[in-house]
């Protein structure tokens, strides 16, 4: 992989809205450093227009490759065409885009629908035939992961009539909103007695929900099952305490596979797979949560 040494790569990151995002940023920087890449980092503060500006800036600067974690799937045709005209390979991280496939080298992403499905499947298996009222903490209204993770989860639950999604509200992917919304759900569902499980679109909201459950005098993990997505360290800490039941990993290391693909492409022009899907691994308390916590703690979550 020496052929990456000394290259300049622009990276347009969405922002720093969550711990997971911070981890992705720091892992990307780490990966670049290991490979001797000069990484140009641009934070778009959640705005697509800033990402487009950043990509244009990278093009004007004449970088060797561009990585972008697109905030939204649409609207990339023009700027990607510009990059193509300037013969700069573009790699997408985290999510795909709605643009012709020849406009980018590859897309390294998880399958968000699958994440939701894995979480849902775990719940279906865990509950068995018992009746179960599930409450859902959605991500930010209109954001792609929120839409996909909701869809995947619903797919998994389809056909299991004993499982119903009783309530679904947005917790904005944040811990405090997750807690507030969960409190509301508990009040609305008979002091929480009717709730059998909570599904959160990310771990931060789940951590908030766990606190709300405890404040209501119930036992998270036992009275109310907690399943969420991302696998950040704090959810493993909760698992160690027996307060969380399952999480689906979303790896922050998207850059590693991306750089590998880039290296291969630059070496002999091998076109990498168009979609590199990262694993959506399920973690439960059986998977050595303490160990997972320790390995992840240093990653910048």
């Amino acid at each position: 992989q020496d052929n990456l040494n000394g290259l300049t790569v622009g990276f347009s990151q969405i922002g720093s809205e969550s711990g997971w995002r911070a981890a992705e940023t720091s892992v990307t920087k780490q990966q670049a450093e290991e490979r001797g890449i000069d990484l140009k980092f641009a934070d778009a503060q959640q705005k697509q227009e800033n990402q487009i500006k950043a990509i244009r800036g990278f093009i004007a600067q004449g970088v060797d490759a561009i990585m972008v974690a697109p905030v939204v799937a649409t609207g990339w045709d023009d700027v990607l065409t510009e990059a193509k005209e300037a013969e700069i390979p573009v790699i997408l991280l985290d999510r795909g885009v709605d643009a012709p496939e020849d406009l980018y080298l590859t897309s390294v992403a998880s399958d968000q629908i699958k994440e939701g499905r894995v979480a849902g499947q775990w719940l279906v298996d865990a509950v068995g035939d018992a009746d179960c009222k599930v409450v859902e903490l959605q991500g930010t209204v209109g954001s792609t992961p929120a839409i996909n993770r909701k869809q995947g989860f619903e797919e998994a639950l389809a056909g299991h009539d004993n499982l119903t999604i009783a309530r679904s509200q947005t917790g904005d992917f944040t811990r405090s909103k997750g807690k507030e919304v969960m409190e509301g759900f508990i009040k609305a569902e008979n002091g929480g007695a009717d709730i059998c499980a909570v599904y959160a679109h990310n771990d931060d909201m789940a951590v908030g929900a766990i606190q709300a459950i405890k404040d209501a005098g119930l036992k998270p993990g036992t009275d109310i099952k907690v399943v969420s997505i991302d696998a950040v360290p704090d959810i493993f800490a909760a698992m160690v305490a027996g307060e969380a039941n399952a999480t689906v990993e979303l790896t922050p290391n998207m850059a590693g596979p991306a750089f590998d693909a880039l290296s291969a492409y630059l070496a002999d022009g091998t076109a990498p797979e168009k979609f590199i899907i990262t694993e959506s691994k399920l973690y439960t308390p059986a998977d050595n949560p303490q160990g997972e916590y320790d390995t992840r703690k240093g990653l910048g979550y």
Partner: protein
Amino acid sequence: MKRSLRPLAATAVIFIIAYALSVVQFPNMLSTRVLGNFLTDNAFLGIAAVGMTFVIISGGIDLSVGSVIGFTGVLIAVLINWLGFHPLAAFVIALGVAGLFGAAMGFIIHYLQVPAFIVTLAGMFLARGGASVITQDSVPIHHDFYDTLGDLMIRLPGGGRLSFIGMLMIVVFLGGALLAHRTKFGSYVYALGGNPVSASLMGVPVAQTTVLIYMLSSMLAALAGIVFSLYTSAGYPLAAVGVELDAISAVVIGGTLLTGGYGFVLGTFVGVMLLGLVQTYIIFDGTLSSWWTKIVIGVLLFLFIVLQRIIFAASAPGGKSSEKA
């Protein structure tokens, strides 16, 4: 007139110096590509900022522009994609809806005497909420007309491009400047910002002007939304969150007083370009972390404001007494 033009000149000089300094560090910044990008990438912000300039000169504020941009994008995308409208028809509808929306805000502000800050805050919630009720997904727009507009550009030597939306922004700025400085409506806007009671006693149609100002702002925001949809070929309910703050910053950096009564449309242009310059500089630098980016933007904002205060203080002895109030 001549003396009052000084802050505008000063802002322009600051821009040129800042640009020159950036070029010294990153020679690539002096390319037609970067210059073209300045226009294209900031087109929607610039157009929205023109409307904001009028609102602020009149002594008001419009927090709804970002949401209106988002709403317009979604509305257009839905009209074109799902309902089969021609883009031009969709544009007209979007501008009309926005016009009504702005008029309603202006109406409430004037007749119910509710502060603009709050009315437009409600407007911001309403437009954003309306967009996400229509759809939560981002809706790509596929239409030949969009491709045509997208291809409408002047290629500059050196790889730069002067896009249709960039040129549109310039036209809007020129039109805005003309409207502000050379029409009766413009003089009414300044009058309202100077002193609404006096203005009304001098015969300014205050109600009509207020309604028109907010209509103008919303319609320009809708135009910005159209430009944004051309820019991204999509409508997305979360698009352009917080653009109102960027627009306000641009207007203020451009020398318009938030207290109303003073300001220049072309100053706003320089303000938009300055913001664009800061962003481009940060991108070229490429070493700032997420947080340092914010801190640096804050510090630069501060520097511009302070610099401007110094220049204002030096250039306007007549304004002293009113300033002190």
